[in-house]
C-alpha cells in the first residue's frame, strides 16, 4: 500500500445543537483499497460522510488530502479534491431527468450550449454498465423506482474523475443483480486505484469487498479491523459495544432451538 493515505481524518468533531454527532474521529483511507464504515443506526456514519463531502463543515479536527491539510467548507471543495459521494438520501433533483441529474454541476457543453447528445450517450453507457433498466433516460427522477434512483445516484459518482468514492448504503434498495453489480463496481474502482469508503449494514457485503472495517459507535472510533484476520463476531461486538449482545443472544437461542 502507498505511503500517504488519500484521505486522513484527525480528531474530527461535529455537533448539532445538543447532539454531539462525532467526537474526535480518526480515519484513514488509501488508494486502491476499500474501507468499510460500519456502526449502528445513529452512530454518525452519514454525518462523517457529509463532513468529508463538505455538506456539514467540521467543528474541530483536520482533514488531510494526500498528506496536505485541506479545508472543505462547501461541496465544491470536496469535488475539486476528487471526492465523489453517493448520499444515503441520494440528493437527486426530482424535477430533472436522469441525464440532467447525472451531469448536474458538470454538464458537457459545446461552446456555451449544453451538449445533450454527448451527455445522453454517456448516461446510457454508465447505466448499462450497472445493468439497470430505466424506461428512458429522459424521464424525471420522480417517476423512477427507489432502486432505479439509487443506481442513478451511484452512476453520478462515476461521471467525474474521482480519486475517492464514498458510498453511503448504496445497496439498501437494490435487487440481487444490482447489488452484485455494485459490489463488482466497488472492486473495479479498487482495481483502478481509487479509494473507496463503503457504508453498509450488510455484513456479508462488507466482508465480501472491504479490505478494512472501521467501526463507529456513538460518534466515536471503536476500532479498525483488517478483514483478512478478523471474525464476523469481533466486528459485531465492536459495533454493539459488547461481546454479549442482541446478535449473539439471538444466535445462541436459534442454535439451542435447533438442537
Amino acid at each position, binding site marked *: 500500500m502507498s505511503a500517504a493515505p488519500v484521505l486522513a481524518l484527525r480528531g474530527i468533531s461535529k455537533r448539532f445543537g445538543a447532539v454531539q454527532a462525532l467526537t474526535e474521529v480518526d480515519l484513514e483511507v488509501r488508494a486502491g483499497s476499500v474501507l468499510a464504515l460500519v456502526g449502528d443506526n445513529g452512530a454518525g456514519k452519514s454525518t462523517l460522510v457529509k463532513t468529508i463531502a463538505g455538506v456539514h463543515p467540521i467543528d474541530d479536527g483536520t482533514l488531510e488530502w494526500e498528506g496536505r491539510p485541506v479545508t472543505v467548507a462547501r*461541496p465544491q471543495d470536496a469535488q475539486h479534491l476528487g471526492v465523489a459521494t453517493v448520499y444515503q438520501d441520494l440528493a437527486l*433533483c426530482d424535477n*430533472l431527468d436522469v441525464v*440532467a441529474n447525472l451531469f448536474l*454541476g458538470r454538464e458537457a457543453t459545446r461552446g456555451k450550449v449544453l451538449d445533450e447528445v454527448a451527455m445522453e450517450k454517456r448516461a446510457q453507457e454508465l447505466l448499462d454498465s450497472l*445493468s439497470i433498466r430505466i*424506461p428512458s433516460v429522459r424521464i424525471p427522477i420522480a417517476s423512477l423506482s427507489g432502486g432505479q434512483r439509487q443506481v442513478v445516484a451511484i452512476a453520478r459518482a462515476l461521471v467525474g474523475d474521482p480519486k475517492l468514492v464514498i458510498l453511503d448504503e448504496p445497496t439498501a434498495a437494490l435487487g440481487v443483480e444490482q447489488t452484485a453489480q455494485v459490489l463488482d463496481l466497488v472492486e473495479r474502482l479498487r482495481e483502478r486505484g481509487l479509494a473507496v469508503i463503503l457504508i453498509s449494514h450488510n455484513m456479508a457485503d462488507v466482508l465480501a469487498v472491504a479490505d478494512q472495517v472501521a467501526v463507529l459507535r456513538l460518534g466515536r472510533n471503536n476500532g479498525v479491523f483488517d478483514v483478512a484476520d478478523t471474525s464476523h463476531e469481533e466486528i459485531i461486538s465492536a459495533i454493539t459495544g459488547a461481546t454479549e449482545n442482541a446478535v449473539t443472544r439471538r444466535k445462541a437461542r436459534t442454535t439451542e432451538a435447533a438442537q
Partner: protein
Amino acid sequence: MSDTQPGKQPGQSPAAADQAPAEAEGTTKTTVPAPAGPVDAGAPATDALTPVDPRLLVREQGFAGYLTDFKRRIKGGELGSIPVLVGLVVIWAIFETTTGRFLDPSNLTNIAQYIVGPGLIATGIVFVLLLGEIDLSVGSVAGLTAALTSVLAVKQDLNEGLAVLLGLLAAGAIGALHGFFFARIGVPAFVVTLAGFLGWSGLQLYVMGNTLSINNISGGVVQGLNNTYFSDIAAAYGLALVAVAAHLGSQLLDRKRRRAVDLPHRPLSEVLLRSGVVAVLAFATAWMLNQESGLPLGLTVFVGVVVLAAFVLKRTSYGRQVFAVGGGVEAARRAGINVVWVRISVFTISGFLGGLGGLFIASQAGVADSNLGGGDTLMLAIAAAVIGGTSLFGGRGTPWSALIGILVIQSIMTGLYMSGSSSDAVQSMITGVVLLAAVVIDSVSRRTQKTAGRA
C-alpha cells in the same frame, strides 16, 4: 465489465407497455428505431444492444401516435400549455362573435402593443417562480425605473439614452439587493420583496417630487420603445422566415447528431410537423401585422427576450442550475451548485425585466406617472406566468408561459372593453376567475402527476 446477454432481455411483453411512465413535459419525444424494420438475418445481438428498455413507450407512427400520446399526457396530468392555448382560442372565438371585429388586424396589433410591458415583467416572474419563490416588488420596480428615467432625462436634462441605461441598471441592482437579502441573509423572498413593493413605490413618489406625471420626450428613446414600427413588409416576413429556418435547422441538426450516435430521435415527419406549426404561427402573425402598421419594435423586443430566456433556461448550464435549485435546494447544493449566486442572479433578472417592462409601459402610456406599476400590475404579471403554465411550486415552467398568459389576460381586457362591459369591477372579477382556474389546473396537474409518479 458487464455484458448484456441477449437471453436476459425480458420478452417484449405487451402487457408491460402501458405501465411505463409517460414522457416528461418538454423533453424530447423519443421514438425507437422501428423494430418492424427488415430484420438482419443472424444479427439478434443488435436487439440486445439496443439501449432502450422494452417497456419504454414506443409511440406509434403517424397521427394515431399523436392521439394516444395526447391521451396519455392528459391522464398523467402533463398538460403543459394545452389548456391555456385551448382557452385562448375559445376567448378569441367568443369575442369575435360578440363584437365582430376582435380579430381585425388593427385590434390584434393593438393587443400586441399592450402585452409588451406586462409581458416583460411576467418573463422576469417566470425565473423567480422556477426557483419556487415569488417577487412581489416587480410592479414597484417598474414604476421606479420609469420615474427615475424620466426625471433624469426631463428634469435633470441628462441624455435620454443614458437615463434609460441608468434606470435599467438601478432596476437590476434593486433585484440583486432583494436576492442578497433572500439568499445571503436568509429572509424569506416573500417578505423581502414585500418590503421592496412598499419601499420602491415610496421612492418612486419621492423622485417624482410634486409632479404627478412626466410626459415622455417627444421623438425620444422611451417614446420610441412602444411606438416604433418597421413598416416595410419585408421586416415581419423576414423575421418570420429567420425564426422558422432557425427552428427547423436546429431540430434537423439535433436529429442528425442523435442519429449519428444511435440515440432515439424524432421521426422526420414529426420534425416537419413541428416546424410547420411554427411556420404557420409566425407567418400568420407577420401577415396580420403587415395588414396594419408593420412589425412593432415592442413586440420584437418582447418575443426576443422570451426566446433568449427560453434558450438560456433550456440549453445552458445556468438554466439547468435554476431548474435544479427550484427542484431541490439541498440536492443542488450538494451537486456543487452555488445556490446563493443562482438565487441572486435570478432576482437580478427579475428586477431588470421589471424595469424594462416599466419603460415599455411608460412608452405605451405616453407618460411616467406616479401610479405606474401600482394597482394590478404585479398581480397581472404573476397571473400571466401562472396562467401560461409555469408552476407556483417551482422547478416547472417556461418563459413562453409569460407570452401566452399575458396574451390571454390582455385578450379578455380588450374584449370586455370592446363589448362595452369594461368596468374595472368586471375585469378584475374575470381575471381573478381565470387566475384561480390556472392555479387549480397547476395544483391538480401536480397532484395527478404525483399519483402517476411524476412529480
